[in-house]
């Protein structure tokens, strides 16, 4: 009796099940890590004390404990999850539409633009007469500047098409423009203000609050259904532009849509926390290593991987320095290098 070859559909189903389990395990790991993040912090409160604070609610009688749990740790955790997921998603989208494994949400100049906007706000709200309190001005201008950068790249894409080379070149031009504008701001800034700008660029979760969580969270929630519509189309695009077009896909329109969603996710993520690097570059690679090219699983996996990396960095930062937390962006940058190497080395010959 000769063994009959297993039908392709069965093999495919088995693989899909394996990948589904991988995503599930990653999600579980994220949940555990999130819990760990919640119980670590400079105040050194015991898990028991935190549990009581959680049960007592935001209005609990122990004001210090209630504030630490409900006003500080919980929004920081939520912010970490949202920003990590947004950057992970944005990273995968960017790598897909640019067909480039080196792309990240910041490739097309979004981070430089956000940094410029933040620098402008930090330099002096007086320059920009808006009826906003100082703490909202920075995220607002970072967001606006990112959308301006998006619009610039978009205009080029409208005029010259959405081929990856065109997008990348337009993006690099925009990036250099905003970087030089940002350098000019830094040159003009006094030492104290300069320090604030530089540290904003590092990215940190320390200033998270519920307003920030609801703004960034809403942007993420709005983007998710928009992305869901294009899951198949994005997967086809990974086959290559010619294949996708042969399948009847309007590649240019798809690229433009995905590009806008990426911009929105990135702007939402970095406006409140600063430009947290590497997450958007590495999370997509982790996601592909877990589930391959299918974006139906790839996008959730990238979101989970992004959140996982950021929360892991947050926990590490809190453990490294007890009192004054190291900005999480520095930890992701330092930890990102070995992670990227690990991803590269673990890749089977492509």
């Amino acid at each position, binding site marked *: 009796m000769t063994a009959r070859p297993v039908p392709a559909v069965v093999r495919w189903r088995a693989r899909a099940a394996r990948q589904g389990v991988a995503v599930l395990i990653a999600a579980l790991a994220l949940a555990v890590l999130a819990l760990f993040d919640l119980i670590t*912090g*400079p*105040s*050194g*409160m015991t898990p028991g004390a935190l549990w009581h604070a959680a049960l007592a609610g935001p209005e609990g009688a122990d*004001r*210090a404990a*209630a*504030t*630490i749990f409900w*006003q*500080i*740790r919980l929004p920081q955790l939520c912010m970490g999850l949202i920003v990590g997921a947004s950057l992970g998603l944005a990273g995968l989208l960017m790598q897909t539409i640019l067909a480039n494994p080196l792309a990240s949400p910041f490739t097309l100049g979004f981070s430089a633009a956000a940094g410029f906007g933040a620098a402008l706000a930090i330099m002096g709200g007086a320059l920009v007469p808006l009826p906003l*309190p*100082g*703490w909202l001005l920075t995220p607002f201008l970072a967001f606006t500047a990112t959308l301006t950068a998006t619009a610039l790249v978009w205009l080029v894409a409208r005029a010259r098409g959405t081929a990856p080379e065109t997008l990348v070149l337009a993006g690099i031009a925009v990036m250099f423009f905003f970087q030089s504008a940002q350098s000019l701001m830094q040159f*003009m800034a*006094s*030492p*104290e203000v300069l*320090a*604030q700008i*530089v*540290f*904003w660029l*590092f990215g*940190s979760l*320390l*200033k998270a*609050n519920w*307003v920030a969580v609801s703004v960034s969270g809403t942007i993420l929630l709005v983007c998710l259904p928009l992305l869901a519509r294009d899951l198949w189309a994005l997967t086809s695009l990974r086959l290559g532009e010619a294949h996708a077009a042969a399948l009847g896909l309007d590649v240019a329109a798809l690229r433009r849509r995905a590009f806008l969603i990426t911009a929105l996710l990135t702007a939402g993520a970095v406006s409140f926390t600063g430009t947290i690097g590497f997450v958007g570059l590495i999370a997509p690679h982790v996601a592909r290593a877990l589930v391959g090219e299918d974006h139906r699983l790839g996008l959730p996996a990238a979101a989970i991987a992004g959140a996982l990396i950021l929360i892991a960095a947050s926990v590490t930062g809190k453990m490294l320095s007890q*009192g*004054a*937390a*190291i*900005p999480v962006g520095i930890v992701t940058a330092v930890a990102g290098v070995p992670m990227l190497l690990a991803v590269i080395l673990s890749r089977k010959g492509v």
Partner: protein
Amino acid sequence: MKLATLATAVALSLTPALVHAHEMITDLDGRMVMIHGTPERVALGFYYEDYLAVAGPEGAAKIVSLSRAPWADWRPNQWAAYTKVFPALETLPDFGNADDNTFSVEALIASKPDVAILSTWQTAALGEPAVKQIENAGITVVAIDYNAQTLERHLLSTRILGAVMGQPERAEQLAAMYEAKTADTVARIANAVPSGKKIYVELAQKGPGEVGNTYGKGMWAGVIDLVGGENIAKGQIENWGPLSPEFVIAAQPDVILLAGSEWKNKPEAVLLGFGETDEAAQPKMAAYAARSGWADLPAVKNREVYGIYHGGNRTLSDFVYARTVAKALYPEAFADVDPAAELVEYYKAWLPVAPDGTFVTKLQ
């Protein structure tokens, strides 16, 4: 206008007879703050010396946490002098530095203070939500501001410190002293013949090989404006930044101020402040004076080159530095004023340490 009303409000609330367990003050952020009795536990963000001057001998023991970097890292020798007297400072929890985004509201709350005394630059960097977080934990937040370097805000900050720490009389005496010294400086200048001397300030941190920052507005420029000097950087530099060396030579300054501090690992800097000596500062200042093209400047020819402590600004003892600059511009009007001696006197009267070191000097 608004500030004047604030000042009156604070002054009224400070009449000794009116000091009750509960009182409402308006801090330098313009927030209304309810003071519940004299605090036993204080989280201190900045203005450490001014806090200690107003709070008096018991003040140090009440500090339960602080923003450590602006003291220990920015003024290491001053920090050493105070930790010698109050060793407990060394082990206090640190809640981070607002300047570099490491300020941890959680660490501050965890130290369970009754009141958090912060600078307005700290509350501004933190943002309103973070200040609310601290208040939600049942901690009174008070913002004060000596950075503005104005008489009005110096006096208000001092009186607020007095009200918060239950030391209104001490605060009033300090405020009166500061106001009197400033008034005396201004009066002497008003009566003197206008000097018309051109003055150049440089932050002498990077060594003579590199041009350091000068000040067009605020900080030393503010002091020069107060004493009516002609600042060559005015109109050239917005706030602070380096002037071109060529411009400095062309401007022919009559007086040069080299601002020095207790910097670490700056071998060529003019080191001044706690624990620094004049013998060590002289050759460093001479190296600046020996810059190419400087030998013929009126300031260098007439030996009108001064070293002045950069850390001396934005604090209650800064009247000393205003008088140093004024004396350089109007030597006759200030002939009987000895700024260095006034600094020693101030520390003796108000602070638990002596200013052992060099704070103002002149190139020999």
